[in-house]
């Protein structure tokens, strides 16, 4: 094990979870870490299963593995075969692999299908203190429960399938403490966009981030997932939040959560998953919540963001030469003029969904903005639930009626326009306000231009056709 019983060195949350999963530690080698939960989807797994087949290896722990179809799936006509033959091959390959190796799969149309980072938590599989991996960088989402969760590449997927472990060097730890409560109208998405703008897209590289402080404690589980989800956008492979009553209340009664005596035992352990008072982080960042406001991006990486009330920056605002060049390129790609008020920027499309903001709470925020309002005539608006369960819950609450009455399209669950592997894409030159997590060049379709926003801002923008804070709607 990672430490001896009489070793009482104070530890951070990340160190505790790490230590509890070390199978083998040898000087000069990476730690061999046990993986409690392995999530699979169709894009990053085919070559991994192929590797197993070639080597004649089984999946070591099918009972710790679960698969879903999300990246490629269409969000309309899901009872029809997938029209794009290449997407269909990928989904069919996943189905064949899961059948052959005995892996549980939630296929299109299944009540538990959805984006991999939405279904883990909603099934109660994501729990405090577990290690979670997936061939997807937004696996950091699951850290909201106090899990150690990170994205891996396909070779590592194969490694976990074969051995249920990964050889890893322990990252450093960083505390991001958000002091004071979030001001009214400021959401988890605004908070994380502001954090990324502050520390930069490389600021978290080599670290596991722990989010702390009053503003973080006050977030719902959905809000915490939004924050942890975008840790990778700051370069950190994992982001974590210590579990508390909010976490336990969310988990209780979920299909895969412990029950009865197991529940009590689990909660007793989960309560120990707090950073010790005198533990030392390798880096600390403190943010005053009072300074936060609705936040949006103007450029082509998630660190290029400003408050919605601000203007498009000038490249000369940046001290670093590489930031300045990046800003110049971004302004050209985004077709923006420095000095333009962000609220003057008109969009063609609004996308509400993704593993960042495709949960029920996000959809409720949108419905609240749209009650008795219509989306602007010239704006295409897609609402894509993160999972079938989110979709059904929204329909049970009548939210779908509000969406369609406002003039938005209510779709089936999947990643959709977050990355445009399915038919939901931007055309060249089209501009979107999107609740997803990446505004990279071409991310939502070749030549498409993306502004990352919160669900509230997305909903208000849909109404006016320009980037808008909900608080300013008449």
């Amino acid at each position, binding site marked *: 094990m990672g430490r001896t019983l009489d070793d009482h060195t104070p530890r951070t949350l990340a160190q505790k979870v790490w230590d509890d999963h070390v199978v083998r530690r040898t000087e000069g080698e990476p730690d061999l870490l046990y993986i409690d939960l392995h999530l699979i989807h169709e894009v990053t797994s085919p070559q991994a299963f192929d590797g197993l087949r070639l*080597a004649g290896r089984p999946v070591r722990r*099918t009972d710790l593995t679960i698969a879903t179809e999300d990246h490629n799936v269409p969000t309309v006509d899901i009872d029809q075969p997938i029209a794009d033959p290449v997407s269909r091959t990928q989904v069919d390959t996943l189905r064949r692999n899961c059948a052959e190796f005995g892996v549980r799969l939630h296929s299109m149309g299944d009540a538990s299908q959805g984006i991999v980072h939405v279904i883990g938590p909603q099934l109660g599989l994501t729990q405090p203190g577990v290690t979670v991996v997936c061939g997807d*960088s937004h696996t950091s989402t699951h850290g909201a429960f106090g899990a150690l969760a990170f994205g891996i590449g396909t*070779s590592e997927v194969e*490694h976990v399938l074969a*051995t249920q472990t990964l050889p890893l060097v322990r990252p450093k730890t960083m505390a991001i403490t958000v002091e004071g409560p979030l001001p009214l109208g400021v959401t988890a998405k605004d908070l994380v966009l502001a954090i990324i703008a502050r520390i930069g897209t490389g600021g978290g590289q080599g670290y596991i981030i722990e989010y702390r402080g009053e503003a973080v404690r006050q977030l719902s589980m959905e809000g915490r997932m939004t924050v942890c989800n975008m840790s990778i956008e700051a370069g950190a492979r994992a982001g974590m939040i210590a579990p508390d009553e909010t976490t336990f209340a969310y988990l209780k009664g979920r299909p895969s959560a412990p029950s009865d005596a197991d529940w009590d035992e689990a909660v007793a352990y989960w309560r120990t998953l707090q950073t010790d008072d005198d533990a030392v982080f390798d880096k600390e960042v403190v943010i005053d919540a009072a300074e936060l406001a609705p936040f949006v991006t103007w450029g082509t990486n998630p660190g290029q963001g400003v408050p919605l009330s601000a203007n498009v920056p000038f490249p000369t605002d940046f001290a670093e030469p590489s930031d300045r060049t*990046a800003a110049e*390129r971004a302004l050209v790609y985004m077709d923006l003029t420095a000095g333009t008020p962000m609220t003057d920027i008109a969009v063609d499309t609004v996308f509400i969904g993704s593993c960042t903001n495709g949960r029920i709470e996000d959809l409720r925020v949108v419905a609240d903005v749209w009650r008795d309002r219509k989306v602007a005539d010239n704006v295409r608006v897609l609402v894509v639930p993160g999972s079938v369960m989110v979709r059904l819950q929204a329909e049970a609450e009548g939210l779908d009626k509000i969406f369609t009455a406002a003039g938005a399209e209510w779709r089936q669950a999947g990643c959709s326009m977050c990355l445009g592997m399915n038919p939901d894409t931007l055309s060249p030159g089209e501009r979107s306000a999107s609740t997803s997590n990446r505004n990279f*060049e071409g991310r939502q379709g070749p030549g498409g231009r993306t502004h990352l926003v919160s669900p509230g801002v997305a909903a208000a923008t849909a109404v006016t056709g320009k980037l808008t804070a909900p608080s300013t709607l008449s």
Partner: protein
Amino acid sequence: MDAFTTHTGRAVPLRRSNVDTDQIIPASYLKRVTRSGFEDGLFAAWRSDPDFVLNQPQYAGVSILLAGPDFGTGSSREHAVWALQNYGFRTVISPRFADIFRGNALKGGLLPVQLDEAIVEALMAAVEADPSLEVTVDLDLKEVRAGDVVTPFEIDDYTRWRLMEGLDDIGLTLRHADEVTEFESRRPSWKPRTLVG
């Protein structure tokens, strides 16, 4: 995995920072279920511009990529590594790599070499002045050599050994299968299960 000891080839300067994996290979190229054939997708959006550096004839047949800081950010897609390898790259030199990209590259035997920004800049300038310049990345001596420039780089001994031997990580881990089984016997029974019964 092919072993990596030393590689000599010509290099191409990609003067961009924050080259994310969506730029290295856009999502629409990720649909293959094999590990090969991804070279068409490499920098697909940028390569549609005839002036893009990889389209310039003097850089045909390069095998070393010189890039700005924060190379490989974003999506965990290992296809980014395969696309670079399928195109013919053996190593990428940058002042800073994203963690997941670096891990993926090391698994596949594409060597990520981290050097100071000033040295990367000097290498880019040298290659731009003479595109036929041969650059050597020597994993054995842990140094990069190009013309008069000789510069050491850091890599931990374990990773270096694994790359030089061309060892398969899974095979290495399976040597410790007993320890994994022993660890499993100590896991609490209430830990989550995806299959019941």
